């Protein structure tokens, strides 16, 4: 897949506008999943994702290594997400129950018991993440949504791997302390060490 994306990047940079849609979808999707994990609604996540994708397309000529497209997207996502989270906190947005927003947003799963569970999960996570420093939330999203390693997260955040490791540890500890996340505490998780 990464090779296919790299080829699309090369096509785009050589002036083939047909590659733009695939890259826009890829960038929008990556950013949406990161932002969707840490924003309080899909609408907020969508705003961030669109801003990210527009920035990615307009600045793609600066990307030296076509294989690094995803990392490029993640870096831009971090910038936009941090800015948005800080702005939201600065103006102390009125609290809107996430369940309302989630119900109104596009379904994250088909109707049925599974969807109710997903909505509850997302609600608990978003509320708990809202209490964390923004960078910790983003680092956790990069790890558990995109499966990035400490080194990759460090590269995206612009810090050393040890620092990224520390940010992740503090983020996990913060979530564990939150009662809303009790269901996801390690002691109750399915499966054991792998």
């Amino acid at each position: 897949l990464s090779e296919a994306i790299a080829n699309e990047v090369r096509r785009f940079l050589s002036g083939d506008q047909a590659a733009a849609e695939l890259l826009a979808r890829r960038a929008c999707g990556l950013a949406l999943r990161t932002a969707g994990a840490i924003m309080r609604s899909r609408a907020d996540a969508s705003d961030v994702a669109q801003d990210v994708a527009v920035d990615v397309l307009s600045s793609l000529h600066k990307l030296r290594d076509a294989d690094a497209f995803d990392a490029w997207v993640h870096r831009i996502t971090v910038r936009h997400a941090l800015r948005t989270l800080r702005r939201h906190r600065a103006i102390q947005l009125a609290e809107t129950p996430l369940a309302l927003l989630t119900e109104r947003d596009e379904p994250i799963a088909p109707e049925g018991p599974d969807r109710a569970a997903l909505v509850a999960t997302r609600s608990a996570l978003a509320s708990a993440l809202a209490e964390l420093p923004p960078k910790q939330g983003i680092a956790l999203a990069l790890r558990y949504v995109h499966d990035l390693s400490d080194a990759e997260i460090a590269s995206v955040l612009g810090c050393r791997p040890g620092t990224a490791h520390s940010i992740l540890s503090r983020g996990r500890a913060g979530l564990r302390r939150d009662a809303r996340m009790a269901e996801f505490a390690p002691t109750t998780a399915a499966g054991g060490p792998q």
Partner: protein
Amino acid sequence: MSTTRDDVAMRAAFAPARGLEPTDAEVARVLARARGGRRRRFREHRLVAAALFAGLIVAAGTAAATGLLPVGSVIPLSKNPQGDGLTYVSDRTVVATGRTETAGRWRMSVANSNLGSCFAIELVDQVAPGSRGPMLAEGCGGAGGTFDAASLGGGTLLPDATLVYGPAPEGATAVRVTAEGFSRTTRTHEGPADIPGDFYAVEIPRKGLRNALVKWLDTEGHTHEPGIYVPSTIDYSSEPATPDRPQ
């Protein structure tokens, strides 16, 4: 990267975000903005509130005429304002008109665009701040004949009221908004013969309604689940709801 028990738990918590995919409309807006080199998402002037259908909020300028054109009237394509990334591809058809206590007269209309079906409501008695036109909100991307809900209210024009509105299925005869200690039911409006579905608008107090839910009722008076929570413009901060009083 080793996987610990903690990782398993965390992955479970983040699983919903992994399934998020952008919609075609979102990608289309990205491409339109990237081509245009514009950073603004939508036209923002004259917008007072947002309609939310399929995640897209479009603030449109004043549409053609003010006043209550009768249902079925057609506003020519040339008089529809175009937004960033939004291009109308059809005339606009008035699908319903009515009046509520605080917001006054309203007019709903639909048009097709490059982003899908667009659904607009104009409060023709409310002049939008900074403009000479009526308050207008529009959302694009929904499908005709389905049930949806958006809300409009707050600000200086409607500080105490929220207008809940949207399309309803053809078989709907009424919609009901409920919250703790509150219930209000209003009849739906039949659209033109060539436009699928019905339409509704119901005014509710802006303050004090937590978890307000809107559902549609069929000809037998049965409510249809699951309903839609009234989005965003309600102020959750204070007073209790007013008693039940059907419109």
